[in-house]
């Protein structure tokens, strides 16, 4: 079984400041890793994913994440946030040979002017 821990439930940040959202996972098998974003009153949208290859993954809207296998982490970063980045962010993992995604509890990012 897999489990995902998002270390911060709420992250307040000022506009144009950098932000990092932390995600750790545990799994006995190799996994794919994902970050999803949920804007208010909407479904989830994929930000980025790690399947294989380079451990630094770039996604949409200026986000990037780094896979660290030894620390079983997949932290999400953005160097300069906008008001429109206010949303809930979910980290998720999926075993290579399974359909299922396991999600973290989510991190709410609130960007202030």
């Amino acid at each position, binding site marked *: 079984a897999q489990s*995902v821990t*998002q270390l911060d*439930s709420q992250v307040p940040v000022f506009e144009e400041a950098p932000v990092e959202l932390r995600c750790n996972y545990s799994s006995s098998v190799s996994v*794919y890793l*994902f970050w*999803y974003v949920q804007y208010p*009153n*909407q*479904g*989830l*949208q*994929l930000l980025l*994913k790690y*399947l294989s290859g380079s451990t630094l993954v770039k996604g949409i809207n200026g986000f990037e994440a780094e896979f660290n296998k030894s620390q079983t982490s997949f932290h999400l970063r953005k160097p300069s946030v906008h008001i429109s980045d206010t949303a809930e962010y*979910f980290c*998720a993992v*999926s075993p290579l040979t399974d*359909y*299922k*995604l396991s*999600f*973290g*509890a*989510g991190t709410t990012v609130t960007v202030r002017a």
Partner: protein
Amino acid sequence: DVKVTQSSRYLVKRTGEKVFLECVQDMDHENMFWYRQDPGLGLRLIYFSYDVKMKEKGDIPEGYSVSREKKERFSLILESASTNQTSMYLCASRQNNEQFFGPGTRLTVL
């Protein structure tokens, strides 16, 4: 673009009612999923379907059933709604390791 639609954005039902939540995808995906989303718990898998008429229980199937008679449609059924089923319900379909989500149905059971 992949489109996943859900029949209602908001739904209010009474305890004991039978509730149907419908999900339709337009990209011929084989795999479809139903999740519920609760604050502080993230998304939890209720059921998934890997093909027409095929289904498998997820992590929290109790109190729910599903139906998949056609490839594009996956229905979640609450046989007798209870107040602890008040939640946001999200449907997804999957292709190439990526899941595509619908907008969600916020269900309130009174």
